[in-house]
């Protein structure tokens, strides 16, 4: 069943008739075909589906990391697919927080400096950047680890630093690509607790790609993506 959200107002994300085709040599791979999706502000949405189903591709399109082959992607009223590369970069910096499966922290920077990275793109002073990074680290419960380098942190701690980096600019939308995929159950639960708290207490809109049913259960809604199409139920 194709999923078409029809909420006329309150939709933060609106994906309409999106196709995404990748070229592998002379071969064209249709990853998404005529996909429609609307996500209201403040929602915690889980995206599930088999490997290669296009979950991360959809996340990339919403986050402006990639462009659709056809169709439109609108976030907060902005046609993301029509922005120039420069404007898109600025838009991402302002509106998108990204959490990756493998954390993607800079190994040469301390937790504090990693969290400060997105703030380098702002006009904030050094002390203000430091202050905001400290607050973000406090939110994720890592105030005491701010001087630590990623290699000295556990997987769960690294992911929490990743979340702190994602929220430090107070973005409109948090995009999490398998945030618990590389973590044990306990650390994964801690990360999910954190995401849930950010959604419930701070009203953050979150889209989380996951393979894990247990993780998806924490979201307010779960959609399944298979063969380029969305549905509200898994096709078993």
């Amino acid at each position: 069943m194709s999923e078409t959200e029809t909420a006329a107002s309150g939709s933060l994300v609106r994906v309409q008739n999106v196709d995404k085709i990748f070229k592998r040599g002379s071969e064209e791979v249709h990853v998404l075909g005529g996909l429609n999706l609307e996500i209201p502000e403040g929602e915690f949405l889980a995206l599930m589906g088999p490997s290669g189903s296009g979950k991360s591709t959809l996340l990339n399109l919403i986050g402006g990391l990639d462009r659709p082959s056809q169709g439109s992607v609108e976030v907060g009223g902005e046609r993301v697919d029509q922005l120039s590369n420069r404007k898109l970069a600025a838009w991402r910096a302002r509106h998108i927080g990204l959490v990756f499966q493998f954390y993607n922290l800079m190994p040469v920077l301390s937790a504090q400096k990693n969290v400060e990275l997105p703030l380098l793109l702002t006009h904030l002073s050094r002390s203000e950047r430091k202050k905001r990074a400290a607050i973000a680290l406090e939110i994720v419960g890592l105030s005491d680890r701010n001087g630590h380098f990623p290699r000295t942190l556990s997987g769960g701690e690294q992911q929490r630093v990743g979340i702190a980096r994602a929220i430090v600019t107070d973005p409109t939308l948090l995009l999490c690509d398998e945030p618990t995929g590389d973590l044990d159950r306990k650390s994964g639960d801690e990360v999910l607790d954190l995401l849930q708290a950010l959604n419930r207490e701070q009203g953050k809109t979150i889209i989380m790609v996951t393979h894990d049913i247990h993780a998806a259960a924490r979201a307010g809604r779960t959609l399944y993506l298979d063969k380029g199409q969305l549905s509200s139920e898994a096709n078993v």
Partner: protein
Amino acid sequence: MKYLALILSNLKRHKLRTVLTMLSILVAFLLFGYLAAIRTAFTAGIDVADLDRLIVRHKVSLIQLLPASYEARMEQVEGVDEAVGQTWFGGYYQEQRNQFAQMPVKPGEFMDMYPEYVLADDEKEAWLNTRTGAIAGSQIAERFGWKVGDKVPITATIWTMNDGSQTWDFDLVGIYESGEKGTDTTQFFFHYDYFDESRPDWGKGLVGWYTVRIDDPERSAEISAAIDAEFANSQAETKAEPEGAFLQGFANQIGDIGFIMTSIVAMVFFTILLVAGNTMAYAVRERTNELAVLKALGFTDTGVMGLVLGESFLLTAIGGGIGLALSWLMVSAGDPTNGFLVVFFIPGRDMIMGVVLIGVTALVAGILPALQAQRLHIADALRR
């Protein structure tokens, strides 16, 4: 400045690789500075050669002498203000290895011709009035510990005295300083009259070459031709040319120093470009994912390109800067040949060229990896 910490952190990622690359760059720029000083030494005088001075020598060779009577005839040539003769004496002080340039000249005319040789008024006066008086450059005086008032015996290898003696005694009446960077202060000048009276008959009335001051540098070719025409078909035909060209030709007798130095530096820099370029290429390739993350966080394509270029600039600036500074220190410590090189310093223009080279090296080494980083497609890079 806010990105400096990020760039520095990346340089510290592989400390050994960074240090080795920096050392390579350092050695290249050290060599650049040192060779610049050596080139300057070999071409000393060319840069300070006056445009309104010509050198007139025997057409066949510099070792063939010209009649002293040419001076008056040359001064009659239209456009010539003054002519001063000089002769290579070719002696040494105490030991044969202590060779340096000694020339008999007419003091008054000579000092007028070469204002870059700065001599105190009282010393100049003393030189004019002392038949056996001589002046030495500050560098050579320092080398041998001479001071004004000393008796300086010079042993002749060409010009024995007419009594058969090889030793000429001079009274050091002055020590001249350099009035212009690059001026040779290793020379020794004495009275032509004393020289001519005391040398054997076979050489009397002859000089090695003439320095001629002309009234219009733009007419140097025309006046040179007029001088040569004046002595055409005589027993001692002349070759007149601008002082700079003469000194360049003199330097070229050793070899084209400039070309040799440029070739060495070019080869060294080509190698350094490969080393630095390789380092930067590796740095970008192994950080593809991190660069993609930076872009995902909102860094623009140009911003990421700037970070990579900034890294290349910092790497080269530290290595090259230290290299240039070390070369300057080493050159400042003095001529390594104990006086064989008449001048030994890195000219300002070569230091500026060094700084420019640092920028060019950084740009060339970093531009391809930087462009690669700029073109990086976020989604593709994150999938790797």
